[in-house]
């Protein structure tokens, strides 16, 4: 069966520090991958999606970037974190673009 992992589970970082969040999917090939951010008590904001290795589409211009170095690995990065980057970061995958998405456990990021 397919599983999706995210780490770390929680992270507290100072303003201006770099960020690297990792997401990996097991048990499937060529997944469509997504990064979402969820602010406290809010909905899901799509940040990036990828339909293949090295293919990244950005939905919201911001302080973050994404990379997909391997088929089942998706990384979210920042060179310098802002206070507004705090939130719950969720990685998800789907077999078909725009179809059922399966979410990872998420990373709670607090920028101080």
């Amino acid at each position: 069966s397919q599983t999706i992992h995210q780490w770390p589970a929680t992270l507290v970082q100072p303003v201006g520090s770099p960020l690297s969040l990792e997401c990996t999917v097991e048990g499937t090939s060529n997944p469509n991958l997504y990064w979402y951010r969820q602010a406290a008590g809010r909905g899901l904001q799509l940040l990036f999606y990828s339909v293949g290795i090295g293919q990244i589409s950005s939905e919201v211009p911001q302080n973050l970037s994404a990379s997909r170095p391997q088929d089942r690995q998706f990384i979210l990065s920042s060179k310098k974190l802002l206070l507004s980057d705090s939130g719950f970061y969720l990685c998800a995958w789907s077999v078909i673009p725009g179809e059922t998405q399966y979410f990872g456990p998420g990373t709670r990021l607090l920028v101080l």
Partner: protein
Amino acid sequence: GQQVMQIPQYQHVQEGEDFTTYCNSSTTLSNIQWYKQRPGGHPVFLIQLVKSGEVKKQKRLTFQFGEAKKNSSLHITATQTTDVGTYFCAGRELGSGAGSYQLTFGKGTKLSVIP
């Protein structure tokens, strides 16, 4: 761009009462999906509707897709404390453009159940 509106934002019900959340899209959808996020957890897929006017049931949950494929509803009969969480709808825009590669999520309805 496509917008998905979900109402109400919050709903408090007494255990045993019914609950309904509504989802409306600004554009025609190829499908609508519903997810549940428990407090402190991540969204979990519940169901996908594809056909116009489709109705699906999962025990006490009834999901409906509108005839015009622009709206949907989730109805829970006789709520229980295990139903607590935020319910999100998500729609995929009909067509072959970039929008069809992604789901647009509503902001969710947070359900509280008073024992």
